[in-house]
């Protein structure tokens, strides 16, 4: 049953934590919360850490079963289907956003005229193949790619630190708490990535202090991500609303870096690797849902159906990132907030029921 090690599980959690956080999300939050954007981000990270904690506890306490079986046992078949369907809808929306983000990134930084078909073919193939091969292959791939992401991220961040003034967005709460709260709930969509970790129930080989290690490393990752967000906000200041792909734009902020195109490529590779990895995890999650619902032996068919759905949705919205951004910052963000709250409650119920069962067993 076990497919990935604790180390691989933590790396998947790190990739999910980083995905989209340093790209479009920063501009979205800033356009709503203005100078208080960083506080909104901190609040959402706290929420995501709570979610990670709840999920890791559930994973730890249920080593012998998968998510669908667990839900069926505790919430009946209908309940399990409803929960799975909600998770599936979120993942599908997240997948569409991730693909669109990746496609827009290619358009903005690499090719100014790039057919969505040409983009779709290799992207769907690579991410689909990774997801199809299962958690073990996914974990191993991410174990290698994570180092490129982290090193690239470090170089991208360090190169323009000199432009920081530390006070660009101060004082905070100048217009009360309302912009910050508005920014928080409108960006929750980006902080539900960790819901994907639920699909690793029963697939992790635990090491000592599994929960502590996972939550601790995720907390450190969150702190570092918040620090990078702070740096980016500080450098761009009030012009942040014009910056869509924040990390890449930040890495090229110094006008003289334009002379060396290498940095553009480095940040492009980091962003692409980050998004590819996260997308693969989303596809994996959707594959697992499809497998449970359609009762197929392999995840191939569910993955193909998901791709067709993603492609159809992207065609309907005309491959426009801004349309998607409008959608995710309104209805979808509110729904994600609800879904995260629901997942935390479900995790708590699962923990309580498990404890009651254990006590019954002892008696």
């Amino acid at each position, binding site marked *: 049953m076990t497919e990935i090690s604790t180390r691989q599980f933590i790396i998947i959690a790190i990739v999910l934590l980083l995905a989209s956080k340093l790209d479009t999300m920063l501009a979205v939050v800033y356009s709503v919360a203005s100078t208080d954007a960083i506080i909104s981000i901190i609040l959402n990270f706290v929420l995501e850490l709570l979610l990670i904690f709840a999920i890791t506890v559930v994973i730890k306490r249920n080593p012998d079963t998968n998510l669908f079986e667990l839900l069926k046992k505790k919430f009946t078949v209908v309940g399990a289907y409803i929960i799975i369907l909600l998770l599936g809808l979120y993942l599908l929306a997240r997948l569409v956003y991730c693909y669109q983000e990746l496609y827009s990134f290619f358009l903005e930084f690499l090719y100014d005229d790039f057919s969505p078909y040409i983009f779709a*073919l290799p992207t769907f193939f690579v991410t689909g193949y990774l997801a199809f091969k299962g958690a073990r292959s996914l974990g191993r791939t991410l174990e290698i790619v994570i180092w490129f992401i982290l090193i690239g991220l470090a170089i991208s961040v360090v190169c323009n630190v000199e432009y920081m003034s530390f*006070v660009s967005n101060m*004082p905070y709460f100048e217009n009360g708490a309302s912009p910050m709260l508005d920014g928080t709930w409108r960006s929750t969509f980006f902080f539900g990535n960790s819901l994907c970790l639920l699909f690793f129930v029963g697939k992790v080989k635990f090491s000592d202090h599994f929960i502590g290690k996972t939550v601790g490393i995720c907390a450190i990752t969150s702190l570092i991500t918040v620090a990078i967000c702070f740096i980016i906000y500080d450098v*761009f200041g009030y*012009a942040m609303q014009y910056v869509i792909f924040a990390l890449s734009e930040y890495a090229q902020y*110094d*006008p003289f870096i334009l002379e060396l195109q290498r940095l553009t490529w480095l940040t492009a590779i980091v962003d692409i690797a980050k998004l590819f990895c996260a997308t693969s995890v989303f596809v994996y999650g959707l594959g697992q849902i499809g497998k449970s619902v359609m009762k197929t032996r392999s995840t191939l068919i569910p993955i193909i159906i998901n791709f067709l759905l993603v492609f159809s949705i992207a065609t309907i919205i005309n491959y426009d990132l801004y349309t998607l951004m409008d959608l995710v910052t309104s209805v979808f963000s509110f729904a994600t907030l609800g879904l995260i709250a629901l997942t935390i409650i479900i995790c708590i119920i699962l923990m309580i029921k498990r404890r009651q069962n254990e006590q019954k067993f002892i008696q």
Partner: protein
Amino acid sequence: MSKNLFNKIIIYAVILFLLAISPSIVNMPSQTSVRAICTGLALDKENGQVSVSAQILIPEAGGQYTQKLTMVNHSGSTVEYALKQIEAQVGKKVRFAHCCFIILSDTVCNDNLTNILDYFVRGNNIGNNTILIYTDKSAKDLLSHTSNVNSNEVDNLQVITKYNEKHLFSNGANLLSFFDDYLAPHHTAFMANITMKNDSGQSGGGDSGQSGGSGGSGSGSGGESSDASSSTSGANSPQQDTILSDGQVAVFYKGKLAKLLSNEEREQFNWLDPEVLDTFIKIENVSDKVFENATLAYTVRQKGMKFEYEIANNTPTIRVHYDLGLRAEMILQENGESLAVNQEYISDVVVDAISRKIDEAVKNVCKIQSEYGFDLFNFYRSFNINCHNDWQNYLKLLGDDENYMKNVQIFTDVTCHSAF
């Protein structure tokens, strides 16, 4: 059995779908045949229309970066329209990923610049770190001149801007920083003034609207004019001109050109910028136990600055404490004799004279900022952070958020030590 068949149908459907979209991938023209690369832009205003000039490199297979650049110009009611016409002229899509700078003439800067630059900052084509350069002459002529000398690194706009940013004033403007400053409460941005002078020392590069610019202009529909030419032509023979930055800085308030600071004024402003080092300070008629009526010049090697903000009696006050590390560069006696003394020489009289000089400079900065209303050092933010409530009360009492600089006072306190 039926499940297997269903699986196979799906797989065949996907393969068919992939095959159907494949021809569009194969049947694509080469990038060089449909793209032209813009390496620089110049914006002027003629007869109420925006005149866009683009320095264009048309890529050829096996071509080199140093191949000849072409200047293409078109006017239109909007930048977008003019750029579309330029594309029509070139017959290729013009792309701006390699556009290093946008030169803006004073005719453009007299109106709100953000109306024009908004097109670039929102568009996905141009880098947000593209350098903005102001010129008090024709932007088109300056760009045309750089087309000739592009391979000469010394006479390159980028090199000059880079030097300026490092030694004359900190943080020059790029597209995004301009918008950051424009949107911030102090609404003040600045950029270098780069001009041209000919061999005789006079300013070169006349108004291209009047002189016809390079190649002469033709009429387009709706009064738009256009021309495309190699950069070597032109009424003013721009080859004889030299690109020059004499340290002038264009200050923008609310997107419009507020004042062109002279070199002397820019040096005075630099006394409030902790990041600008290697400032040269000259004091005259110094008499102490060693010298009589001497002229001394020092270079500021270290610039320790501490700002204190307070609002007393509804008057925002800034106290700047300087701790300067100086090195004597030149000591000249009244009789013209140069005295060989230690470069560490600093006396109380010298410190007094330097202190007076800095105070005078800072007072002049206050006067200029109060007169034109701009706030080059974002004192708004500093007051807002350091004395938030008092500052908000001050603004409320003032009733006019925009003229807050008129009551701001700056006091200085200078200590000096020798430094190498």
